[in-house]
């Protein structure tokens, strides 16, 4: 009950390591009482509400070049963990090649919050409502992680374990989110249903993405990711498979939407009821597929 929300942040120590290895070592040594800090927009709220009591916040912004966006026309995009969402939106490479990321970022909160918010932070916070997670999933995003044993990669598809729970271990610091080159002729859209026109958390969020693909029986592949209707950001594989194997068109979109309806497991909460959320998943999935289909030349 947030009447327990305190007027100020609790006491903690702010640590700024000079390198990723220093950061990972410190975090591992102080497992359970230290947390990596990027923008802080989720952490500070949780600490003031009394949910998190970390003794140390370890600032990992921009360590060892993690504050950059790099695009390679041969291999794809890498967004450093320290890059804030406004910077992502302003990047000419992101605008040109990954406009879905721009659309997803735009839906987050407000300009001043996006100056601090990062995609890496949005992912690590692992809220099923995370607005940029759907786009990252459908674009095939992967995380670059630095731990006590050095670097490793982790696909996003297996990253989320539950609300606020991920595969990260003590000492782990996400250093970048990377995306392969988008398939030729791809397009996507993010429909976010909030209470206000902009800036709210999502009641439901539907990311749809599609592109021509000769390896699919239907000639096209679609990706659908749902926010706020399951314990984790939900990829609707049943609908994706259906669309890959059936003739593309309004009937297929209706069926895919019905499959999304079946797949999602929303709850009743202050933002909306399960009944409404399911209905909206169905409607917005269909609408998203229709929109994407029009964009990719259908």
């Amino acid at each position, binding site marked *: *009950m*947030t*009447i327990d*929300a*305190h*007027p*100020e942040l609790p*006491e903690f120590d702010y640590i700024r390591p000079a390198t990723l290895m220093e950061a990972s070592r410190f975090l591992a040594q102080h497992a359970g009482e230290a947390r990596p800090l990027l923008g802080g927009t989720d952490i500070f709220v949780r600490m003031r509400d009394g949910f998190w009591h970390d003794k140390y916040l370890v600032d990992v912004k921009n360590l060892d070049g993690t504050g950059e966006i790099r695009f390679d026309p041969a291999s794809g995009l890498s967004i450093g963990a320290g890059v804030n969402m406004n910077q992502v939106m302003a990047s000419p490479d992101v605008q040109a090649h990954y406009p879905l990321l721009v659309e997803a970022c735009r839906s987050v909160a407000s300009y001043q919050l996006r100056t601090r918010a990062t995609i890496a932070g949005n992912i690590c916070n692992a809220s099923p409502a995370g607005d940029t997670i759907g786009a990252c999933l459908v674009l095939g995003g992967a995380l670059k992680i630095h731990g006590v044993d050095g670097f490793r990669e982790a696909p996003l598809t297996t990253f989320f374990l539950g609300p606020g729970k991920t595969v990260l271990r003590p000492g782990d610091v996400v250093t970048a989110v990377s995306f392969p080159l988008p398939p030729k002729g791809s397009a996507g859209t993010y429909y976010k*249903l909030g*209470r*206000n*026109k*902009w*800036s*709210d*958390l999502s*009641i439901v969020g539907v990311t749809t993405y599609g592109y021509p693909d000769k390896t699919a029986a239907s000639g096209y592949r679609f990706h659908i990711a749902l926010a706020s209707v399951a314990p984790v950001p939900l990829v609707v594989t049943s609908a994706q498979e259906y669309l890959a194997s059936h003739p593309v068109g309004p009937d297929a979109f209706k069926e895919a939407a019905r499959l999304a309806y079946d797949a999602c497991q929303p709850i009743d909460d*202050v*933002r*909306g*009821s399960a*009944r*409404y959320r399911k*209905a*909206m998943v169905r*409607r*917005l999935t269909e*609408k998203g597929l229709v929109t994407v289909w029009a964009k990719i030349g259908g």
Partner: protein
Amino acid sequence: MATQATKRETPHPIGDSVPRVDAREKVTGSALFADDFQFGPGLLYARVKRSPHPHALIKRIDTSKARLLPGVKAVVTGADYPGMIGLYLTDRYIFCRDRVRYVGDPVAGVAAISEDIAEKAIDLIEVEYEPLPGVFDPEIGARPEAPLLHPDLGKYEVANFIFPKPGTNISNHFRIRKGDVEAAWPQCDVVIERTYRIPHVQHVPIEPHVATAKAEENGKVTLWGSSQSPFAQRNLIAKALGMSQSDVQVVAPYVGGGFGCKAGVSMEALAVTIAMKVRGRPVKLRLTREEEFHTAFVRQGLVSHFKMGCTKEGRLLAMEVRFYWDGGAYTEYGVNITRASGYSSTGPYEVPNVKTDSYCVYTNHPVGGPMRGFGMPEMHSGLEQCIDELALAINMDPVQFRKINCVKTGSTLVTGMKMHPTGLSECLVKAAEAIAWGRKDPPSAPNKRRGKGIALMWKAPAMPPNAGSSAKVALNEDGTVTVSVGGQEIGQGSFTIAAQMAAGSLGVPVEWVRVATPVNTDYSPYEWQTVASRLTWSMGNAVAAAGRDARKQILEMVAKAWSENPEDLDIIDGKVISYKSEESISLKNIVIYGIPLPNDQGWVGGPVLGRGNFMPTYVTGLDAETGQGPRAVVHYTTGAQAVEVEVDMDTGKVEILRGVAAFDVGKAINPDMVKAQMEGGFVQGLSTALFEGLQLKEGVLQNSSFVDYRIATSTDVPQSIQAIIVEVPQDDGPWGARGIGEHAMVPTIPAVANAIYDAIGVRVGAPPYTSEKVYLAMEEAGLV
């Protein structure tokens, strides 16, 4: 009394849209609000221990551990302060003594050298509760078998126009018995019965409550706070503590939004009592935003039952109205909402047969207090939808139906009072015209539906019959003027109005006028409260009177010096001129030093200080059984709003495309500021129509932050809000003026609801009209 108004002269700057006098301070960040005062290193911080239970007995409080925490200077509980406090009914202890009645009810307070230590001390206070069954619905709470929340109701001090029912949870029952509704129903061609459950909402000022208090060794107490009511706070706190009003000084700077929540006394008494335990050091208490949602005044929830009937020609014949007001844990202020809604319970219509029962019911919910509209938005939300339904049931245009039945000059009102001159019909016609009533434009997309809706409103200032205002107008050496008032600048522009009225009544340019700020009860003249949309009218009368008093002193002085008649003199643009001799003299210096007589024969005059006051003297009581009486209220401001909406059939989302507001303000002293009130009120109304509702489950608030209590953002407001000023003068208003502040948000909910019905043919019920509510209503109706 009505001299200036009946002259119907409007000297500049009356009627001019002069820029706000406080604008530059506010845009440079130099305007001081209550949390901006610097108190130096001696400042202590307070925090409050609050009940987690909606209803419980307090069995034991142990503060011993808290007192021992280093840095703690004082710990206070209800045992320290036995006095009760309240505006219309003293039903509240400052800190709970024997029981708690809502989640957040204050149980103990701590002052410490930092907010953090005070927080830690709060956690060390142990309280043992015995939970009691709670009341969470006012209809259930009104039943005789409901758990009794205030067994001592019969012992509370109460204003003589409030009628509590001891032995029940009903702290006020207001009745209207007019004509004979039972005989009227058979004469109606259409009768409808509807129930509307209006949820609690809240004011949500962007500035949370903050109060700093200091108790001196000599017993004097100073309170600095974000306050709409410095004098009422002084009075109520002094009475509760057995002190003289002159020993309590309230300093009230600019208010960062009030809307009623900073009227009366709420958390300020906590700061004062904690400071009194400390002595000699200032103690600051500020509410977190979450505390604001949980514990500040709320707008009462309402269960409203309407039965109304009309003839097939469209004449309203009868209304039967029952209101169960969810008053919350304490109804010391909210009892008057029960009365105010009762004496306005027909809405702005002439209805010959009326039966109204308006009940204020104690519940274990947050404390209902004054919120913009004081019962009128809640009441009109359902009433104006019923009016639309009646019209449509007889196949009559809702605008036409309202034209027939709305109050006009001379109409007999629900209390028997005769309606004073009013421009309500003009507001209705102009609003309908401005929204292009009757024309349906195509929707912007195939999955959308468009609709238009209209609603009328009325409201009288709800206050004791003898609420008074006073003002001072002092002249300075250079001819500038300092106006002192007790009314507060809460954003509505009261200081600018005061400056304009002083300038207009004196005869000086408005740029020469300053308004003394902050309001300080030691130095500022008395003002009942900054509520009820009463300042322009009541404080305005006092300011104009003070200006005329100063003018009289100046003219008499100059007349004496010139051996002329004061009637031949005037003050124009800061100069005294004689129409007879064509002499003129600047106000400079003479307003302080007087005028030397010729040939060194002495002096005439002295420092000019104008004073004025205003208090209505003509409000009469109402019969306790029938609610009838010659003059229930001072006056009504009336108006209309119309909206055009678009409903998204895929999601249920309602978008407001355009809004129109037309209100009869008597005389717009500053037309641009009047329009700004109409726009701002419309948006606050829109916000309550589409987004707002306190979600209370068994007395526990589920949405206690901006994350889940949503208000309108810049992206939610329509493309345009057209504000139309209608001016039918108020006989005893300054230059004919009456108020607008609250009225601007009263009819928005029903206007939106009526527009949604026009768009999709479904009546969605009570607000907020969230996308979910609208979508599921469409689903139930088989539309989607």
